[in-house]
């Protein structure tokens, strides 16, 4: 009987440790401020979404980026941004939006994806965070409109397939500034 209790105790301890280790980062006490997260987003957007780069043959300068700041902040365990907060101004030129922009998109090319139009939707999730370093997953999705040619100022017509990727990036902070150290891996979808 003693042996049974010992096994149970070990298992329960293991369960407890497991629960502690496996707890999503968003549920932990945030170690970064909203300003930090927005600065990280700026560093990543500058490094990854350069205006001259293309996504499905349309430049990012033409597409524009929709950044989901609240989804990002929430994933870091932080509250939503207050609207028009001066403290959370970004250096990169982005539009702000939520996941709702994907509502009429799918991966099968069966819907118009009109809310997103030509734009690309971006959000971040933390993988590992400390006050001066972080590994963050950068998510981006956009509509692939096949042979439809981009035309500035006009809404795209026709169906689109939602495609995208995620990329894991290591950042560090020195002298108060977050910088990209390296891209670790990417996940194409």
């Amino acid at each position, binding site marked *: 009987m003693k042996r*049974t*209790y010992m*096994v*149970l105790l070990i*298992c*329960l301890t*293991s*369960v407890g440790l*497991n629960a502690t280790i*496996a707890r999503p980062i968003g549920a932990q006490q945030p170690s970064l401020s909203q300003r930090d997260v927005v600065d990280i987003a700026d560093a990543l957007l500058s490094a*990854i979404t*350069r205006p001259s*780069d*293309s*996504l*499905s*043959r349309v430049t990012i300068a033409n597409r524009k980026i929709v950044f989901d700041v609240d989804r990002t902040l929430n994933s870091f365990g932080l509250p939503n941004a207050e609207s028009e907060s001066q403290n959370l101004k970004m250096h990169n030129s982005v539009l702000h939006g939520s*996941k709702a922009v*994907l509502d009429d998109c799918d*991966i*099968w*090319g069966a819907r118009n994806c009109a809310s997103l139009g030509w734009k690309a939707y971006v*959000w971040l*999730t933390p993988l590992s965070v400390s006050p001066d370093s972080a590994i963050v*997953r950068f*998510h981006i*999705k956009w509509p*692939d409109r*096949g042979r439809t040619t981009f035309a500035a100022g006009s809404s795209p017509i026709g169906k689109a*397939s939602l*495609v995208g*990727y*995620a*990329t894991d990036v290591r950042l560090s902070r020195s002298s108060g500034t977050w910088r*990209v150290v*390296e*891209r670790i*891996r*990417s*996940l*194409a*979808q």
Partner: protein
Amino acid sequence: MRRLMALTFLIVAIIGCRGDNVVSPSTGIAVGQHPSTDADCWGYSWQCDQVRAGIAYLLQHANESCRAAGQSAQARYDAPPGEAGFAPGNAGGDNDQMYVIMGYPASTPSGQGATDHYTYMQGSYYGLSDAQSGALIAHEEEHQNGDDGINHNTGKAQALQDKCLNNQS
């Protein structure tokens, strides 16, 4: 009373001890539980079933490119563990698509680089038709063979997915 407590502990312990998290080979990505009792299956049995059905669909496809994608996916499926394969994935985010991991150095941001040869199945891979499963597998095979990078600029991955979705293409 002691028996009741022991029974309660036992149930909790059994549930807790079953929850072994596993990590995908070479990527370090947490892939959730691995409860399959099928020795040949790398994930949930439904994931393996669905991949096998998708590959079988591709192998019988009317289009040669889709059949070729099916053959390379079959080779990936049959590869020795650690070299290539399919695996359950948890890339976070919307959890609505398959992913293939593509490792590349920071100096090549286009993502045209060597992959880790694994194709990862996201959570809502569940419930797809054989044609949808096959079409997604074909899409990922285009990434795997280097014909399309993460920016999808050649359009080949999406084009093959569209082509293979219809068995008459």
